[in-house]
């Protein structure tokens, strides 16, 4: 049985003419897994997190967290969850330790138990040495780590992380992703939102792909990739005549899709890249064009998103 159940969620802002942020979304999250919501900005990921955090009421549908309804039993739900918001929701004038102490008190912790827990969390997020520095002196990555630490103080059963790696350096991102895997290994069920395909691929047991408020696919990474078959993507750059070649390549045997050229760049989806590539070079030569760059990409979530929406994830 799923630990988090979402059924037919719908949320529209400023009805009746406002945007529909989430439209008839259903999914389930199993106890102990890392479940990612992957999609571009505006896909509805944060709205789902807000509903599951009892901060927004859905217009329709129902969600249950740990068996409790987010609309009728919000107090019980809030006790089970730790929420890491997209913003650095911390106080700049306080030190890292003071921030954690404050949030611990908000979760009802006090006295020696609170201090012990703060020590543990500081150790996990690797900020023991800088704990007394004010937050305003921290780097973006350090703040992100405290942001996560503040959600872990009360030992939540479920941890929601909303785009926790936005705007940080690769080293801090690595640290956060490793941390998420560690928390999960310790038994925390994780709901993770991101628009970075690589992150979702790396840490997730299962992934839900979202676009414009709708859930377009759910499953483990290999299940999702199978949706687009075993096609390989060939990325090409041409010095001229890209439009002419795109038309010609669409008629070539073994080609399933050719993108619209943009600044001389385009991509081709194929089941057999090895046999197709020589023919691409031949046809380029016929059109008096030169392929100046070529690389192959194995099937991934980016291609799944492209296949299902007709747009690149980064768009």
């Amino acid at each position, binding site marked *: 049985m799923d630990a988090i159940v979402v059924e037919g969620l719908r949320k529209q802002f400023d009805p009746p003419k406002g945007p529909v942020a989430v439209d008839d979304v259903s999914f389930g999250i199993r106890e102990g897994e890392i479940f990612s919501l992957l999609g571009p900005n505006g896909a509805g990921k944060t709205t789902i997190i*807000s509903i599951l955090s009892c901060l927004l009421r859905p217009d329709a549908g129902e969600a249950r967290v740990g068996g409790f309804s987010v609309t009728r039993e919000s107090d019980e739900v809030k*006790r089970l969850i730790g929420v890491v918001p997209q913003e650095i929701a911390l*106080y700049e*004038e306080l030190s890292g330790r003071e921030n954690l102490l404050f949030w611990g008190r908000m979760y*009802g912790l006090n006295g020696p138990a609170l201090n012990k827990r703060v020590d543990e969390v500081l150790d996990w997020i690797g900020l023991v040495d800088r704990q007394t520095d*004010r937050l305003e002196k921290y780097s973006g990555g350090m703040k992100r780590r405290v942001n996560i630490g503040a959600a872990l103080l009360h030992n939540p059963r479920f941890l929601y992380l909303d785009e926790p790696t936005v705007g940080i350096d690769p080293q801090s991102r690595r640290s956060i992703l490793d941390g998420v895997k560690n928390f999960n290994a310790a038994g925390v069920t994780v709901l993770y939102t991101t628009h970075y395909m690589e992150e979702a691929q790396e840490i997730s047991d299962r992934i839900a792909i979202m676009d414009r408020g709708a859930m377009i696919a759910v499953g483990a990474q290999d299940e999702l990739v199978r949706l687009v078959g075993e096609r390989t993507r060939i990325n090409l750059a041409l010095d001229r005549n890209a439009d002419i070649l795109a038309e010609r390549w669409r008629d070539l045997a073994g080609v399933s899709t050719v993108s619209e050229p943009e600044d001389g760049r385009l991509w081709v989806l194929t089941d057999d890249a090895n046999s197709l590539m020589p023919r691409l070079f031949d046809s380029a030569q016929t059109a008096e064009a030169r392929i100046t760059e070529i690389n192959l990409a194995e099937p991934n979530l980016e291609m799944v998103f492209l296949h299902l929406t007709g747009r690149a994830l980064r768009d």
Partner: protein
Amino acid sequence: MKRAWHIAGKEILQNRRDPLALLFTIVLPVIFTVFLGLLIPSGDEGDTRLPLAVVDEDGTRASQELIDGLADIPLLELKTSSAAAIDSAVQDQKVAAGLIIPDGFGEAAEAGRPVALTFIRVETSSGAQSVWEAVEGALSRSNAATLAAEVAAEQVSAETGRPLDQGLLRSALSIAESHLAAPAIGIEVIDAGDSPVARSGGFQQSSTGALVNWVLFGLLGVCSTVVWERKNGLLSRLSAAGVRSSEILGGKTLAMVALTFAQQLLLVLLGQFAFGVDYFSSPLALLFIMISLSLLATAFGLLIASVLRSEQAVVAATVVTALLLAALGGAWFPLEVTSAGFSKIAHVLPSAWIMDAFHGITLKGWGVADILKPIGIVWIWIVAVASVALWRFRPE
């Protein structure tokens, strides 16, 4: 409510670490207190007499008696001058007016002949007009005494056959003067001394006014923290952690009340010991007023932050609200100097009642019972404004 205390503690710690907090809570209010205190004239300020330059060209006993009579008028401050300097002294407004007692004044007065004094003034000067009326009053009394003495002496001479000589005239004049000194019909002047109307100027006004003004401007602090915390997801995070809206608002209210109360206490102590404002005639009444003012500012701050969302709208609304409450409520100038209509309209605002209560304890020696009405009205405002704020407050 334990969380509200923790939120309050956190807010106070943040405020303590804010480098601008000291400037807005203490430095600027003190500067305004001093500035306005010097700007607004006080009802009990030192010498308010009008200077009158006098040239005595006669130098007789009669002229000296006239000068003594003028010196006894409380409105006037006599300054001895010379015929050469008196004109420029008046023109340069070193004195309000000038009076020349001409040579032969005494002789003419003794002989009962008409004699004219020279009064020098700037025509448009209201001070000169007041001096003129005072001099004219003194001369009228002098003329009345002379006339009464002459009539009485003539009557005595006619009835007794005693010759009408200087001795009889002087004797009659002496009797007339003594009667005029204690006339049958007099005017008793009573100072409405307990009324702030005459006395809420100077530091009495500026100390209480600056205090109310800067506490009201403290609502900017409440608003900006709520807006900042909403924008940065802190309020949502608190809500997701299970903290209720009432606990968030309660914590912010506790912090704001504590901070503005401390601010008030410092300004009250400064007013009491540096500017001589009598705040401690009733410490309990003072305590009630201070707490009420702190709550009032907090309630307005939370209302604005609850109703409005954008940072620009909140800042604009906060400044306008604080300005209206402070200026129209009498924190910038005493409402007593405004028209009755203006004062009545101003008393729609709670700040006017706060100022009344402050003036009551500093000027009239009011106690707790006396402040019940103004503070009761302030509390109606507090409850109403805070209720709407709580009703409309959304962390998201």
